[in-house]
């Protein structure tokens, strides 16, 4: 198998040189972080007053973890470490409650990110002769823009269609002979069920590869998609706090996702003891950014669970390979590739006086796609007795939820006292979806 590199020097660094590079970049990151009041206070407490206090990579352990709550508390600009003039883009994402989190990027940051994505694409064997249909949402969601710029840098022909509109997607795949897709696994399966309805067959398309991410899926699902479409499927991992896609990506050997360790320090941590875990042991993924100036993050706890594969990859890249995600340390839900916290839904419900405090979140499959149903109770003391009022209430819950979680939920109204009573132990989330 031919191995293509985007940046051979950095991709094939030997372990020693990679560590040396990481140390130099960590020092730089720490000095940037010290420009923010948040890290200044936190690092000082840990005895780190300047980059000179980081002497070896082991000194990383002295640095306290950063959590999603820290990002929320620093919103909007507590973690900005460059003058705003140098910032060219911001991406916000939903926090665990109403407060979002934000990542700032300088032009150089975007350039680094784009390069990592270009590297990832190249590692899968794709190149400038490919037609790339980017079916992830654009906008604040980093999946769309991240792959977009990387694909353009590689020189692919990019179709920036974004998510949804299945018939148009299939039409464009056919008309422009798309070879590479980027989307969620559930949407990929949905597409398959609709190709026939559009009057085409899979064979009439020119597909060769698909990058599937934003949702966990199994090796079986990869096999299923590969068989249904006759293509190669590559797993992709990223999170907005670490820019977005392009953090870890599979190469042509499809044996775990190379984590670009010249850009991120990867730790796998025991979620309980915080002990550093070796290869093949499942733990929480913790990342430190090494090349981002505007928003450096040190030892960021992703709350994603995975492990690192043992041994070396045949592609000769020294960058360690991350397994498929095996779970979460929190209650985050992934609905058609969008991250949702039950607490965000709860917050919306609690501020609408016409519904009661009890609610339930149902997740179902509608075909291969996810359906989110939010069940709420009418609050009897606020009930006026009009049908129009009930319908307006249903619409209000739907619109406020969409504003908070960027998902269209189906709202079910119930009589008071029907849903499980609001106590710590009540089962609020019922997930009947079969795992992909």
């Amino acid at each position, binding site marked *: 198998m031919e191995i293509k590199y985007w940046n051979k020097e950095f991709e094939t660094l030997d372990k020693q040189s990679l560590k040396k590079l990481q140390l130099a970049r960590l020092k730089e990151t720490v000095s940037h972080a010290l420009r923010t009041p948040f890290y200044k206070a936190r690092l000082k407490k840990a005895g780190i007053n300047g980059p000179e206090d980081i002497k070896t990579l082991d000194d990383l352990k002295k640095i306290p973890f950063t959590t999603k709550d820290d990002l929320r508390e620093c919103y909007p600009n507590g973690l900005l470490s460059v003058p705003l003039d140098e910032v060219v883009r911001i991406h916000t994402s939903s926090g665990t409650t109403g407060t979002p989190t934000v990542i700032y990027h300088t032009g150089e940051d975007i350039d680094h990110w784009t390069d990592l994505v270009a590297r990832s694409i190249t590692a899968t064997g794709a190149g400038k002769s490919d037609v790339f249909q980017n079916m992830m949402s654009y906008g604040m969601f980093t999946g769309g823009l991240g792959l977009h710029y990387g694909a353009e840098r590689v020189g692919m022909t990019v179709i920036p269609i974004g998510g949804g509109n299945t018939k148009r997607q299939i039409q464009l795949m056919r008309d422009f002979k798309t070879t590479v897709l980027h989307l969620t696994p559930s949407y990929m399966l949905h597409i398959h069920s609709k190709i026939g309805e559009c009057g085409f067959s899979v064979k009439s398309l020119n597909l060769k590869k698909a990058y599937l991410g934003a949702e966990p899926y199994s090796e079986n699902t990869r096999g299923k998609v590969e068989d249904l479409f006759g293509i190669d499927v590559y797993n992709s991992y990223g999170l907005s706090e670490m820019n977005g896609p392009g953090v870890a990506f599979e190469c042509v050997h499809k044996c775990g996702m190379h984590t670009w360790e010249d850009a991120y320090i990867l730790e796998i941590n025991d979620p309980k003891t915080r002990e550093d875990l070796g290869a093949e042991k499942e733990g929480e993924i913790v990342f430190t950014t090494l090349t981002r100036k505007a928003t450096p993050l040190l030892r960021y706890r992703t709350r994603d669970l995975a492990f690192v594969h043992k041994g070396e990859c045949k592609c000769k890249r020294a960058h360690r390979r991350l397994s498929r995600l095996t779970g979460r340390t929190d209650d985050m839900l992934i609905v058609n590739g969008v991250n949702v916290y039950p607490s965000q839904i709860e917050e919306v419900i609690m501020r609408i006086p016409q519904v009661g405090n009890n609610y339930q979140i149902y997740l179902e499959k509608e075909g291969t796609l996810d359906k989110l149903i939010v069940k709420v109770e009418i*609050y009897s003391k606020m*009930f006026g007795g*009009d049908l129009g009022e*009930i319908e307006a209430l249903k619409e209000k819950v739907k619109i406020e939820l969409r504003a908070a979680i960027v998902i269209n939920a189906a709202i079910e109204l119930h*009589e*008071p006292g029907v849903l499980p009573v609001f106590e710590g132990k009540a089962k609020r989330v019922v997930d009947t979806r079969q795992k992909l």
Partner: protein
Amino acid sequence: MAKQLHIFLENRPGRLEAVTQALYDSKVNIIAFTIQDRGDFGLMKLMVNKPEQAYLALADKGYACALKDVVFISVPDKPGNLSRLATLLLKNKINIIDAHGFVLDPAKVGICCLELDEKDMKKIRKILAKGKFRVLDEKELYEI
């Protein structure tokens, strides 16, 4: 104004049974009812002999319910009378939000229960009197 009892109910087996049982238990008599269906749920509207008592009984059991102002009108059970009533309200620019009706005494008395956007009872009585329609007060209605 006269009162009608409105109840929010889920559309699933047993809801009508539960409501009617609760009303029976509190010795309330149902004179007429209608249900507006909206798929998952519906709004039940009841004319009952003791609206306050019925409301308290259901509210106590936790139902989402409310008493709404309505007008009970005696309409002679003869062709053309409902149309005449509608014309009269139209001429006076009164909108009918919702309505239901039933025949109390065939060929003689029909009853219309109207939710109107006009809440001034004095004005409503005056207008209806012009068309020779009789507004029934609650007591009158429940004693028929």
